[in-house]
């Protein structure tokens, strides 16, 4: 149905705006000592997860691509590549986990694994950019941090599902 596609596109656009504003919001959080520099909570992944879980893979990927382009324009080439690599990989992982792993994992587990997928995508991009594999030394710290942020976003996700579902209903999806 053509009408359905239009609704999905409009809803995705609103979700994109939400994701970008969450990204801005978390850029206001000052760097936390003891954590890997540049590590962020990834609040906008809440929006990606909602899109992956209740609209579709294409819409989830569209959101992370918009986010990546935004990072590219506002923070430069490297930031754009990092955002895209982490975002796309985690959106794909999210989609398949939400679709097929509901019997094994709950929202917390899926959120944590998606956060880790985000880190893995970024690590690969970083290794590719610098041509230096020793960046893998960041992996353990990132993994532990990813568990924490993944769990936090999972909790927030659970809390905002009703609100996002309400938003979705306005688009008859």
């Amino acid at each position, binding site marked *: 149905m053509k009408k359905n596609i239009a609704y999905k596109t409009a809803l995705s656009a609103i979700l994109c705006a939400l994701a970008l504003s969450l990204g801005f919001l978390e850029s206001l959080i000052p760097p936390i000592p003891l954590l890997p520099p540049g590590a962020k909570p990834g609040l906008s992944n809440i929006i990606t997860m909602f899109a992956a*879980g209740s609209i579709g893979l294409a819409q989830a990927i569209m959101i992370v691509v918009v986010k990546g382009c935004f990072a590219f324009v506002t923070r430069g080439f*490297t930031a754009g590549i990092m955002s895209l690599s982490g975002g796309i990989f985690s959106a794909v992982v999210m989609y398949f986990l939400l679709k097929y792993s509901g019997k094994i994992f709950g929202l917390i587990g899926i959120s944590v694994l998606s956060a880790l997928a985000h880190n893995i995508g970024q690590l690969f991009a970083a290794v590719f950019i610098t*041509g230096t594999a020793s960046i893998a*030394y960041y992996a*353990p710290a990132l993994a532990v941090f990813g568990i924490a942020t993944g769990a936090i976003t999972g909790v927030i996700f659970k809390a905002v599902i009703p609100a996002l579902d309400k938003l979705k209903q306005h688009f008859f999806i």
Partner: protein
Amino acid sequence: MNIKFIKKGDIAVIGVIILIAAAFMLWSNSKSEAVQAVITVDGEVIETVDLGSVKEKITVIPATSPRVVITAENGKIRFESAECEDKLCVACGDLSKHGDTAVCLPSKTVITVTGSDVDAVVY
């Protein structure tokens, strides 16, 4: 989405990841004491600094854009300054232990502290 909030699988997978991360950290901490810092730009080693024998301050400025300034002193090495936007490499601070790594992505510069043998740099 009718997926439960938390399941046993979540706890299991989180436990496994923490164990792997802890094992990796222990392993990299248990490496040899003699440390040297390897500075690579775009995958090529441009300078190796023996952190154990550094007495006076050493400054390394690789030919990169954006420009970064690396200094080593008293067994520690750090990105002193950078002309990029976010300055995450400078935020990494002093590196002195085996496995410590600081990366400046825009300039493709990486500092890694390794044991005396260069086992962590892949060309």
